[in-house]
């Protein structure tokens, strides 16, 4: 059953189609919207799981819509990196479930907007699914725009003035980065005459146009770096991620920035495969930017009192890990980096869900106001503690694997400095998470009214706890994603015919 060729289309288009139809089906009763969206996502998740089973059993495969052979038609290519559809579906589905109750507490948002909220979330998820499975450069741009535009709108959706400002900032940065990506794709097209990634790789390896190709590489890299929020082009992220509704923050921070990473991986595989340019300089830039992101993200996070802002800065640090892993470009480090794409998504979604539940119940969002909340919302706070321990990378949680593998990669690559930077950078991160745990459990409440609240509703608690459990399980069962991603990492690092 898993080898039915059309699952890939089902997986990508059911959220997109569902998105378009959400306002229609909820015309009469807007309470239908969440269930409709969940339904669309369930279909997509099922298809995605079939795809993942297939890639695990058969290795990468292609789908040619309409039967047009490449390079004439569009090619959808499903490889091990595309298996991130699984995590997109998981977190997307849980975020939709979580939104059901969460949207009620967004007082500034008119209730009539709720169906459109679900439309935007589904569009965003569908855009991501499309981007990770496509094998066509122009498709990359199309899906990138779908997910970016819906992302801008989602940040702004609460209708608060500050949300609009954050969304505008995000839009400005995002639009520039999209344009850079588009220009770069145009350059590549003019060099190679093709938009198919595999084809472009082959033709690039035979051309001598090194300068335009290098220009395109730089533009693509910067474009995707903005999407991934790497230091120093991260400035849109803290506001956007902290002001968006919590389920959206989970999606943006856990998934959308990762799409920037997947984009980088695709670019990397084209250029490394073509072997046209010497990528050493590029790699060094990535490693240094990664290291800077780790340190700067952690550094800014220390001074935040707002929990969501803190989590947002910590995303920058974690993107730093992943980019450093790619830049070190050894087998171990690439495996570590790509596995962290999955694991960080789990961890950060746990944290944002838990933080959202606290905000939903208490109405406060600063550590000072939230003191003592661990006494009345023990389960949510356990989830947040597990997330904190994972993100710092204490074994045996999910965050440890990436730290171990990237550090190993740094020593393998003969750049021990980055191994040190990575592991000691993680300590910085611990400082601010320990502040959070202290505030929730060990400090006297500054707002006594907190002590009369109760635990978050089940529909919010379930996604939070499930993801927290996964943070632990994926650490212990880490070899499953690792062995899965290993061939892909090896392929990424070998040039064509090399």
């Amino acid at each position, binding site marked *: 059953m898993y080898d039915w060729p059309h699952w890939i289309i089902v997986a990508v288009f059911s959220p997109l189609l569902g998105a378009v139809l959400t306002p229609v089906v909820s015309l009469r009763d807007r309470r239908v919207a969440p269930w409709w969206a969940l339904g669309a996502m369930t279909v997509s998740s099922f298809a995605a799981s079939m795809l993942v089973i297939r890639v695990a059993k058969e290795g990468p495969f292609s789908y040619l819509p309409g039967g047009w052979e490449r390079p004439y038609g569009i090619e959808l290519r499903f490889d091990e990196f595309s298996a991130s559809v699984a995590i997109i579906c998981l977190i997307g589905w849980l975020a939709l479930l979580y939104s059901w109750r969460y949207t009620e507490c967004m007082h500034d948002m008119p209730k009539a907007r709720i169906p459109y909220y679900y439309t935007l979330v589904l569009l965003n998820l569908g855009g991501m699914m499309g981007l990770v499975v496509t094998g066509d450069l122009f498709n990359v741009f199309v899906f990138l725009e779908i997910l970016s535009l819906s992302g801008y709108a989602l940040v702004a959706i609460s209708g608060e003035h500050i949300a609009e400002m954050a969304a505008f900032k995000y839009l400005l940065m995002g639009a520039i980065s999209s344009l850079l990506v588009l220009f770069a794709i145009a350059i590549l097209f003019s060099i190679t005459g093709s938009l198919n990634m595999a084809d472009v790789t082959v033709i690039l390896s035979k051309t001598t146009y090194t300068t335009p190709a290098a220009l395109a590489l730089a533009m693509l890299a910067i474009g995707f770096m903005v999407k991934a929020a790497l230091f120093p082009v991260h400035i849109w992220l803290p506001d956007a991620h902290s002001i968006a509704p919590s389920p959206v923050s989970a999606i943006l921070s856990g998934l959308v920035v990762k799409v920037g990473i997947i984009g980088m991986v695709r670019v990397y595989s084209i250029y490394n495969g073509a072997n046209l340019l010497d990528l050493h300089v590029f790699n060094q830039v990535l490693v240094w930017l990664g290291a800077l992101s780790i340190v700067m993200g952690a550094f800014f996070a220390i001074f935040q009192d707002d929990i969501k802002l803190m989590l947002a800065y910590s995303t920058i640090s974690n993107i730093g890990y992943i980019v450093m892993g790619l830049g070190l470009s050894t087998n171990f480090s690439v495996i570590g980096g790509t596995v962290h794409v999955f694991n960080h998504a789990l961890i950060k979604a746990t944290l944002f869900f838990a933080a959202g539940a606290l905000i939903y119940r208490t109405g406060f969002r600063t550590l000072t106001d939230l003191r003592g909340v661990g006494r009345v919302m023990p389960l949510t706070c356990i989830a947040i503690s597990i997330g904190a321990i994972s993100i710092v990378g204490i*074994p045996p949680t999910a965050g*440890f694997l990436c730290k*171990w593998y990237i*550090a190993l990669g740094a020593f393998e690559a003969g750049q021990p400095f980055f191994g040190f930077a990575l592991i000691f950078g993680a300590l910085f991160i611990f400082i601010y998470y*320990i502040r959070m745990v202290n505030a929730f459990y060990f400090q006297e409440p500054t707002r006594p009214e907190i002590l009369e609240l109760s635990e978050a509703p089940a529909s919010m608690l379930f996604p939070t706890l499930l993801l927290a459990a996964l943070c632990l399980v994926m*650490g212990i*069962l880490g070899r499953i994603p690792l062995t899965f991603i290993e061939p892909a990492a090896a392929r990424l690092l070998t040039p064509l015919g090399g």
Partner: protein
Amino acid sequence: MEVYDIRPMLAPAISFACSGMVFLFGSNKYWRRFWMLSASVLKLIVVLSMLPGSLRGVVYVFHLIDFTPGIGLGFRADALGMFFAAVSSTLWVITTVYAIGYMRGEEHLVRFFGFFALCVSTTVGIAFAADLLTFFLFYEMLTICTYPLVIHDETPEALKAGRKYLIYTLIGGAFILVGSVIVFNATGTLDLGSPGILSADIGTQTLALIFGLLITGFSVKCAIMPLHGWLPTAMVAPTPVSALLHAVAVVKAGAFGLLRTVYNVFGVELLSELGYTKPLMWFAGFTIIAASLIAIFQDNLKRRLAFSTISQLSYIAIGAAMLTPFSATAAIVHIANQAFAKITMFFVAGSIQRTTGKTNVHELAGIGYRMPWTMGAFTVAALSFIGVPLFAGFITKWYISLGALESGDYWVLAVMIASSMLNAAYFLPIVYLAFFKVPPGTKMRVTEASPTLLVPTLICAAYVIVLGTTAEVPGMPFSLAQAAVHFVFGM
């Protein structure tokens, strides 16, 4: 001989499960006590059940799961690990009883005892870790689990101490992690089951880096100067926690890590070629003297004990660093000797505080008449630290001195003698005050501590004498230590 057996994994797993029960059902006083005692007693039974086998030279191994290809969770109960496990599990039962008595009427008891029981689990995990990664995993878990205990009082002072504790130990942990990564990168294994996994062909630069990183990392918990700062500050914790930090779990985890690094990661042969242990000896020797000197000037009893701990721990480090069989024996048995003596002292300090409210040395005049049994136990522990024969501490000093003669480090003898005198200088005044200096007008009425406090204290004190007098009896920890020494020196 290696035997595949689930027990090395079962020992931490049982107490882990029981601590979960403490969290779940701990709000009822009786269930809480039941699960806490289960955690420590069941674990002790499992550990002791392996003792006969260990004494025969059987090594129990168990491989639970690979996180990733090459690194995973493996357990291994060899002689050295069994020694540490047996000591810590025995002490844990006693400490649990004491803690139940001591913490009566305090707040947040579920949290306290839940994490207390978790520490039981992680300490045995450290003892039975089969590779550096498993070791590191439990080592970091121990840090995390002790944090809520250190800041139990939730006062700003306690929070500050907790922060200091975390910063020190986590930085130490990061050193260990980097060291482990380099070891794995150089050798492709992290296994602790052989007398040394590194070899000279890795290159002296890398070897020096690894040694520096691992030893620095472990020295934080082992409180070797200048990395000892967290330990005196962490004294704000409730007394059972101090006992736990100082005698059983945390500092011993550091000391045990040092032993593992010297004997199982590098191996005696390689290290004696490289000569890296000399600086460690100097640091340890300095710590022994300097910490004792500081201890003399402490008026707060627990602080005085804390600096005494710092001094005593370096015995283990210096014994390990001398790389001779005699000194290695001393280093290993000192894990037990120091643990029982120091925990006696902490129990005494806690009992005095609970019974009379006194925490400073100068207030203790005449206390020996109020609490004769308690202060008697203190005297036994003090004599042990001074190194009087028939008490446990003598054995350590004797073997370290023998080791110093063997390796030609004669200055260590001087350190031993000076340390004995300094120990006398800061412990005997307490004994003197307690028994011989009665302030005028004191009523000679005996008001001993409650039995749950007194009985554990007396058991520990009795054990100090047992360890000192019957060391050669087969089945005592000493024979395990000798088995471990024979293994690491290939004798």
